[in-house]
C-alpha cells in the first residue's frame, strides 16, 4: 500500500486534514505539540487504497524533542510527502519545505488556513510559488474541507524535486526571495481580537483574566456535571435499570456468589448503586452516572480552551511558577490534560525537552493531579458533608504539588530549560471539530473506564470471598489504622485503587467513615500510586529505574502526608 506522509510545522492543521481525508478521529487543537506520536489511517485513492500518516509537527529536520524526532524518522518511510503549510505564516514554514525538497521524494505543498490568510490581507501567487518550488501547490481550508478534492486528485501529479543541498543561511536568503516574489501583504490596523491577544499575555491583565477564566470553567463543569446527574443519569438508572436488576435479583434468589458478583448486596430490598459493589450495579453506575457527566463537561470546556488557543497563553503566565518546581510554562499543558485523565497527561509530557523535566512532571502529576473520574467521586462523596472537606482535599494536593515540586527541583541534578513556545492566534472554535474531539476522548474514557471498573469490582469480590482483604487488612493495620486512622477494611480501597481510583473512592462509602477519615483516605488514594493505565504509560516513558524512583516517592509522600493530615485533623477539628 502506498504511504503518504503529512509533514509540517506544529499547529498548521495536519491532524484536521488527516481526519478529513481518512475519517479517523484524532485529537486536533489550536496549540503546537498536540500530536506527539504518528497516527495511521487508510483512504481511497483513484485506483488503490492509500495509507496516510499524520506526523508530529516539526520546525526543521533537526529534531529538538522526542515528538519532532518521530516526525523526522518517518520521512524516509513515505512514498509521497504532503508538506502542510500555514498560509498566514508562509515565510517561517518554508524552511522545512526547502529541507524536505532536498530529500528527493515526490512531494506536494499544501497551503492550509487559506481563508484566514485572505482575511489578514495576505495574497499569495500560487502559480509562481509552484514554479519556484518545482512541486504542485494546492490551497485548502482543512476545517471546512474546501480544496480537498483537488488535493486528492493531485496525488498523481506529485513531482520529485531536483534541489541541491544548501546551508540554512542560504535557505533563508532563498526564502526571502521567494516571499518577495509571491507574497503581498496589505497594510491594515490591529483588529480588536489581536489587541485582546496581546493583552491576555501581559502579566497584570493576563493573570487576572486567567483566574477569572479558570474559575468560570470550574463553575461551568460543576453546573453541567451536577445537572446531567440529577436530571438525566440518576432518573435513567432509577426508572429504567433498577426494575430490570430487581427482577434479576429475584431470579437469582436474592443471594449467593453469582448474585454478589452481578448485583452485590441490596440495602433494604433496594439497590444501593454506589455501595453494593456488583458488576451490573456499581460497575455501571460509577463510570456512567457519577463520573461520565463530569468527564464530558470537563472535555467540552478543555476542548474549547484548546481550540480558542488559550492554553499556550496560560503556559506563558505560569512559566514563573513552573520554574520553581523545576519545569517551564509548557508543562502546564500535560498537567491540564492530566486533570481529565492522567494517561494523555503523561503522554503529553513528551513535549518537554529533558528527561529530568519529564520525571518531575509525571511524578507530580501522578501524585497531586487527580483525574476527573477521581475528582467527581471526591465531590460526590465528600461534597455531601459540605465544602470544607472538598477544599481540604484539593488544598492539600495543591500544597503537596508545590512543596514536592520544590524538593524535586532542588534534589535532582540539572536545570529546567527555558520556555520556548510559539503562541497561536485566537481562533473561533469549529464546532464539528470540537465535538469530534470530545467524542474521541469520551469514547476512550468509556472503553478504558468500564473495563477497569468491571475488572476491579470482580477482583475485589473474589478477594473478599477468599478472605484475602481481611487478611491484608490485619497485616497492614499498623499503617492503615495506626498512622492513617482508617479502619482495616479501607485496605480494599487501596488495593483496588491500582485498577481504578474512582471505584476505590466509592468503596469508602459503605465503611461509614467520618469527614476527617474521608479526607485522609481521599488524599492518600490520590497520591499513593497511579492507576494501572497511567502506570503502564509512565513505565514506557520513564523506564523501569525512574519509574521505581517515582513509585518510591509516591508511596512515601502519600503515607507521610496521610499521617500528618490525620494528626492535624484530629487535633484541630
Amino acid at each position, binding site marked *: 500500500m502506498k504511504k503518504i506522509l503529512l509533514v509540517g510545522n506544529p499547529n498548521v492543521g495536519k491532524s484536521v486534514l488527516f481526519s478529513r481525508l481518512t475519517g479517523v478521529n484524532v485529537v486536533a487543537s489550536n496549540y503546537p505539540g498536540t500530536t506527539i506520536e504518528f497516527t495511521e489511517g487508510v483512504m481511497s485513492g483513484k485506483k488503490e487504497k492509500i495509507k496516510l500518516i499524520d506526523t508530529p509537527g516539526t*520546525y526543521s529536520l533537526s529534531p*529538538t524533542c522526542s515528538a519532532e524526532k518521530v516526525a523526522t524518522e518517518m520521512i524516509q518511510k513515505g512514498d509521497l510527502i504532503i508538506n502542510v503549510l500555514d498560509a498566514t505564516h508562509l*515565510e*517561517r514554514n518554508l*524552511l522545512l519545505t526547502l529541507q524536505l525538497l532536498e530529500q528527493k521524494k515526490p512531494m506536494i505543498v499544501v497551503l492550509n488556513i487559506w481563508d484566514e490568510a485572505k482575511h489578514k490581507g495576505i495574497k499569495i501567487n500560487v502559480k509562481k510559488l509552484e514554479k519556484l518550488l518545482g512541486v504542485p501547490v494546492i490551497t485548502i481550508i482543512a476545517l471546512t474541507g474546501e480544496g480537498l478534492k483537488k488535493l486528492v486528485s493531485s496525488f498523481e501529479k506529485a513531482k520529485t524535486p531536483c534541489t541541491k543541498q544548501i546551508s540554512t543561511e542560504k535557505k533563508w536568503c532563498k526564502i526571502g526571495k521567494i516571499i518577495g516574489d509571491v507574497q503581498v501583504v496589505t497594510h491594515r490596523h490591529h483588529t480588536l481580537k489581536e489587541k485582546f491577544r496581546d493583552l491576555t*499575555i501581559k502579566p497584570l491583565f493576563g493573570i487576572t483574566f486567567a483566574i477569572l477564566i479558570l474559575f468560570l470553567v470550574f463553575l461551568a463543569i460543576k453546573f453541567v456535571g451536577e445537572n446531567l446527574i440529577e436530571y438525566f443519569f440518576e432518573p435513567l438508572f432509577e426508572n429504567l435499570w433498577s426494575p430490570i436488576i430487581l427482577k434479576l435479583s429475584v431470579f437469582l434468589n436474592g443471594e449467593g456468589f453469582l448474585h454478589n458478583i452481578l448485583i452485590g448486596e441490596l440495602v433494604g430490598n433496594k439497590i444501593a448503586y454506589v455501595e453494593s459493589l456488583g458488576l451490573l450495579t456499581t460497575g455501571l453506575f460509577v463510570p456512567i452516572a457519577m463520573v461520565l457527566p463530569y468527564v464530558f463537561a470537563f472535555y467540552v470546556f478543555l476542548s474549547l480552551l484548546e481550540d480558542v488557543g488559550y492554553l499556550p497563553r496560560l503556559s506563558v503566565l505560569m512559566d514563573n511558577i513552573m520554574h520553581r518546581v523545576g519545569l517551564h510554562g509548557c508543562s502546564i499543558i500535560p498537567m491540564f490534560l492530566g486533570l481529565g485523565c492522567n494517561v494523555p497527561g503523561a503522554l503529553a509530557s513528551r513535549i518537554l525537552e529533558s528527561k529530568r523535566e519529564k520525571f518531575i512532571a509525571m511524578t507530580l502529576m501522578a501524585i497531586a493531579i487527580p483525574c476527573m473520574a477521581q475528582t467527581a467521586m471526591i465531590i460526590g462523596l465528600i461534597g455531601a458533608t459540605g465544602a470544607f472537606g472538598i477544599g481540604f482535599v484539593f488544598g492539600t494536593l495543591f500544597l503537596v504539588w508545590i512543596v514536592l515540586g520544590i524538593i524535586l527541583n532542588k534534589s535532582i541534578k540539572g536545570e529546567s*530549560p527555558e520556555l520556548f513556545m510559539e*503562541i497561536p492566534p485566537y481562533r473561533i472554535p469549529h464546532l464539528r471539530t470540537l465535538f469530534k474531539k470530545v467524542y474521541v476522548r469520551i469514547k476512550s474514557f468509556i472503553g478504558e473506564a468500564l473495563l477497569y471498573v468491571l475488572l476491579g469490582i470482580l477482583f475485589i469480590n473474589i478477594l473478599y470471598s477468599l478472605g484475602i482483604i481481611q487478611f491484608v487488612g490485619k497485616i497492614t493495620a499498623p499503617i492503615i489504622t495506626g498512622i492513617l486512622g482508617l479502619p482495616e477494611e479501607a485496605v480494599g480501597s487501596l488495593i483496588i485503587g491500582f485498577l481504578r481510583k474512582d471505584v476505590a473512592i466509592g468503596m469508602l462509602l459503605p465503611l461509614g467513615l467520618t469527614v476527617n477519615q474521608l479526607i485522609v483516605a481521599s488524599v492518600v488514594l490520590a497520591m499513593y500510586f497511579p492507576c494501572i493505565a497511567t502506570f503502564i504509560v509512565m513505565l514506557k516513558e520513564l523506564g523501569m529505574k525512574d519509574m521505581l524512583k517515582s513509585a518510591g516517592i509516591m508511596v512515601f509522600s502519600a503515607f507521610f502526608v496521610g499521617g500528618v493530615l490525620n494528626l492535624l485533623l484530629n487535633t484541630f477539628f
Partner: protein
Amino acid sequence: MLTKLNVMGVSVGTKIKKISSTSPNWPMVFEAKGVQVAIGKGIAQKIFVKI
C-alpha cells in the same frame, strides 16, 4: 535555543516587536514575521542585545 529561533526565521538582525516583558523572570513574548513566540527571560537577556 538559538537553533530553535533560527528555524523560526529569527536570526541576527531580524526585526522583532516586543509584546510583553515587564517583570523580572517573566518570559518575553515577541512577534517576528507575524508569529508570536514566548521565550524564557534568562535566555532572552543573553540573545537580544537591543530590546
